[in-house]
């Protein structure tokens, strides 16, 4: 009996010790897991895990291997939820002070949270070292700079948000000229209403973020680039009559969209235009990949134009790479950032992804027909920052605007309530 009891005690002690050790060991190894990037590896954290984005990343890695053969690229891509799964994981890793060597983030105000949290480094001196300040348009460099004038990331590519895609066949069937150049939103809305009467879905839209995307282009069209930019620095009054008029237009246009919008993401909404079940769709220029994958030809099967009233303005968003504080291999991070900013890197990446280089010295002839028009606009147009894609406002503001927009488009808030909620959201 005594032996038995003693054995029990020993076993129990061993079990406690074992579990305690296991718990400590677990913590230790997970800490090392991301930290092994030292030496000659660089872990690049992105949400480019599939499709044209994956192709772009592969092309960029090809250039990186050529420029820095001594450093090994480690792919830290996380798939799922259009980047939300990656952002969640990144948030956890940064909080645990286990950052990757560099991570993808939308350029602009979305970085503000990381800056405030002292999680990313100022890379202004890398701009001088790599000669990027002259290679990027001055307008863009202004928009990338934070309030204190420092720059915290290097853009790899530029997308345009204010593009309207149309199906010319549907338009012709309903006696609307597919070539028409709309002066302003009113002219466009008139045609949308004509389509509505004919029983066609005039304009397709998807879930909340695509509605915010539409809202931003409507605001841009009605307010003009200067007043639109003023919304984000406080110089334009959210409660003003001009914003009210723009929101009225937004309400009208939302009334002409498909009913099942809240269940769709952008590919499904754009697909409605490809299939001819909707006439127009407002989406960023990554949508061109959806058309091209299905062998649709620009000009005959689909058309692309700036959203009516925003001609001459380039509503930009950019993916960019950062230098996290405490990166295990900062030299590797800098090497990656050098490739990202280099002409070869930007050309290779953007040819595969379908976006355009942030650099102005790339040869447009190397790119596709749509990309060439985008490169030309980017060089000549006024550049403004996109709201829905993190360039114009920090995450908390965007979340509050999204919540207010969802409330409004489902009918739970009226226009006045919506406007005051937007004003409150912009104030933070």
């Amino acid at each position: 009996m005594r032996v038995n009891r003693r054995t029990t005690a020993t076993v129990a002690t061993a079990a406690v010790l074992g579990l305690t050790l296991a718990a400590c060991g677990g913590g230790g190894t997970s800490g090392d897991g991301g930290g092994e990037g030292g030496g000659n590896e660089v872990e690049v954290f992105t949400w480019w895990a599939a499709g044209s984005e994956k192709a772009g990343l592969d092309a960029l890695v090809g250039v990186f291997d050529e420029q820095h053969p001594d450093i090994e690229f480690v792919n830290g891509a996380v798939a799922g939820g259009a980047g939300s799964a990656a952002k969640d994981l990144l948030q956890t890793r940064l909080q645990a002070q286990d950052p990757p060597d560099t991570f993808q983030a939308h350029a602009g105000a979305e970085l503000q949270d990381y800056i405030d949290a002292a999680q990313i480094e100022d890379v202004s001196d890398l701009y001088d070292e790599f000669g990027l300040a002259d290679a990027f348009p001055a307008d863009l460099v202004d928009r990338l700079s934070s309030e204190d004038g420092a720059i915290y990331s290097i853009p790899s590519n530029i997308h345009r948000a204010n593009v309207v895609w149309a199906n010319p066949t549907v338009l012709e069937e309903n006696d609307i000229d597919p070539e028409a150049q709309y002066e302003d939103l009113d002219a466009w809305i008139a045609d949308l209403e004509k389509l509505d009467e004919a029983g066609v879905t005039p304009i397709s839209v998807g879930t909340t973020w695509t509605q915010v995307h539409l809202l931003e282009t409507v605001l841009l069209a009605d307010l003009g680039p200067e007043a639109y930019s003023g919304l984000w620095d406080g110089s334009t009054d959210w409660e003003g009559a001009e914003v009210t008029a723009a929101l009225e237009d937004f309400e009208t246009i939302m009334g002409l969209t498909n009913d099942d919008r809240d269940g769709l993401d952008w590919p499904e909404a754009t697909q409605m235009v490809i299939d001819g079940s909707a006439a127009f769709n407002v989406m960023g220029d990554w949508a061109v990949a959806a058309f091209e994958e299905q062998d649709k030809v620009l000009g005959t099967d689909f058309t692309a134009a700036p959203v009516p009233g925003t001609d001459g303005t380039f509503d930009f968003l950019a993916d960019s790479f950062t230098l996290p504080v405490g990166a295990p291999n900062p030299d590797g991070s800098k090497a990656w950032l050098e490739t990202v900013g280099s002409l070869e890197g930007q050309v290779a990446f953007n040819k595969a992804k379908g976006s355009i280089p942030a650099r102005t010295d790339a040869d447009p002839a190397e790119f596709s027909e749509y990309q060439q028009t985008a490169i030309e606009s980017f060089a000549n147009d006024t550049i403004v920052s996109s709201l829905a894609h993190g360039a114009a406002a920090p995450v908390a503001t965007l979340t509050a605007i999204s919540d207010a927009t969802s409330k409004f488009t489902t009918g739970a808030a009226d226009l006045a309530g919506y406007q005051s909620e937007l004003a409150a959201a912009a104030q933070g």
Partner: protein
Amino acid sequence: MLKKLRRVGPPLLLLAPSLILVGVFVYGLIAANFSTSFTDSHTAAQATRQKPTAFVWFTNYLDLLASEDFQHSLMNLLLYTVVFLVGTMVMGFLWAWMLEKPVKGEGLFRSVYLFPMAVSFVASGVVWRWLLNSNQDEQASGLNRLFQIVGLDVLQNNWWNNITFGIVAIAIPAIWQLSGYVMALFLAGFRGIPDELREAARMDGASEWKLYRHVLFPQLSPVALSALIIIGHMSLKAFDLIMSISKPANYQTKVPAVDMFVFKSSFDYANAAAVGSILLIIVALVIVPYLIRTNREEKR
């Protein structure tokens, strides 16, 4: 003293690992959650201690409970829970009642009813998102299309896109998945009632209704209570099904768990923690009386 240690020591040592783990990872983290919810940590900078945080005690809770949006989430949760509970209990009981009498192919029916439970909420959510498509008339698909085909056009509706009752549409797949489970519970309850009791009641001249009312139902009530508690707490924690049918930003289908996710994603840890605590308290209100009751019964 030594004797006492010898007696208590080994069992305590054996329990220690789980006590420590549960203490740290359940109760410790609950305490951490409450302490976060009492601060004003609403930004990323505060989460990394770049900016100071202050204790604001119940301010977050009061602000949340006063906000119309959070009240809407709570209302949605209540609606969802009521419909989900009533739906699964009624369907589960009906199926169990039908299968309780020896029928041919009982095993087959039992499996068919129980099978949806084997599907994950995320997988069934993807299918139900299509079935519950809110397009009507020409563009209709899913259930709305089915209604058209069978000539019940009036039944078409916008399902989960209704602002007030949208959440009820999401309870439909939840009922579909969990009714079989409730059926299994009730079936076990029915089988646990000895035949002698029924025979005795019949001998005493009880009608079929009286037999159920006075003999069978009282015997089933512990099963019904367990089913209520299990389904009830699942319903309060509803998140995955809602996320895969709707989207986190959609106002019409917001519940507290979704709010918690949205707050967390925008670095508002204090409010996320406060929502988590409110959910914990609501679930505790359901679970704790049940635990006390079972404890008392076991002691008897």
